[in-house]
């Protein structure tokens, strides 16, 4: 099923290949989102009045709740990995299911936010602030969906055939990605909702 190189720490790097691969990917992801933040700051400096007025139209309360939901999902993801690592498969399954549930809740709340904006005739083409807002939160939401697919896969496999303890590395690697998605939101939240 798994080769030694995939699951055992390498003597030259001290970590297994999957983890190294994920960190390389995440480093590139940081630069991907840095581009958006850079564009946002430049546009803000050029249109400070538009940005301030538009940011005040966003719903801070809903965004704060969503931040709490995503931080909770990071906690349950971290717990689901330790549970499997220690051989508690039932707990692994429970925490993975909770993580998936929080991810669904996050997307549900985000959809509600988008729907409210659309009902007030606010769209990505309304102005440069909302163009940035929809692009940044949209790409973030795509990352959330991207994380939910392997979560559902792992949960399904665990329910149908059992998830081997020896494969806990995969959960750790997925966890790295998931915590990164949480990190992006930790920076998006003050940037879009709070600093104006």
């Amino acid at each position, binding site marked *: 099923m798994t080769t030694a190189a995939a699951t055992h720490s390498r003597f030259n790097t001290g970590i297994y290949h999957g983890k190294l691969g994920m*960190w390389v990917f995440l480093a590139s992801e940081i630069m991907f989102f*840095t581009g958006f933040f850079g564009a946002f700051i430049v546009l803000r400096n050029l249109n400070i009045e538009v940005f301030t007025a538009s940011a005040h139209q966003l719903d*801070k309360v809903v965004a*704060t709740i969503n931040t709490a939901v995503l931080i909770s999902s990071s906690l349950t993801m*971290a717990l689901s990995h330790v549970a499997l690592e220690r051989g508690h498969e039932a707990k692994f399954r429970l925490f993975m299911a909770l993580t998936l549930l929080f991810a669904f809740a996050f997307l549900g709340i985000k959809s509600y936010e988008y729907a409210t904006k659309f009902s007030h005739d606010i769209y990505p083409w309304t102005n440069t602030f909302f163009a940035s807002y929809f692009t940044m939160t949209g790409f973030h939401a795509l990352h959330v969906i991207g994380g939910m697919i392997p979560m559902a896969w792992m949960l399904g496999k665990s329910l149908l055939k059992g998830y081997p303890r020896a494969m806990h590395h995969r959960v750790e690697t997925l*966890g790295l990605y998931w*915590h990164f998605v949480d990190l992006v939101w930790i920076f998006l939240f003050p940037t879009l909702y709070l600093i104006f």
Partner: protein
Amino acid sequence: MASGTSFEQIQKSYLRVFIALMILTALTVGVTTIHFGDTLNIVVGVLIAVFKAALVIWIFMHLKFDNRRLRYFVYIPAFFFLTFVFALTFLGL
């Protein structure tokens, strides 16, 4: 994570990180009601976000327990990210 520690011990330490993240979230929302001035509000917002990010990376992403050289995967992109953000913000480019 050290293999000698039990699931319950790790759960406890993760819960502490979680509570700290929630408090910092409340704090970052709370400080927006105080006006330090535009620039200082941005600095405070970014500093709290950096602190939250450090907690997530250090504990949830296991960087504290992994090979020290792995930390450069965070330090280097984070350095570029923060330099970029602060330069664009304060040089008014």
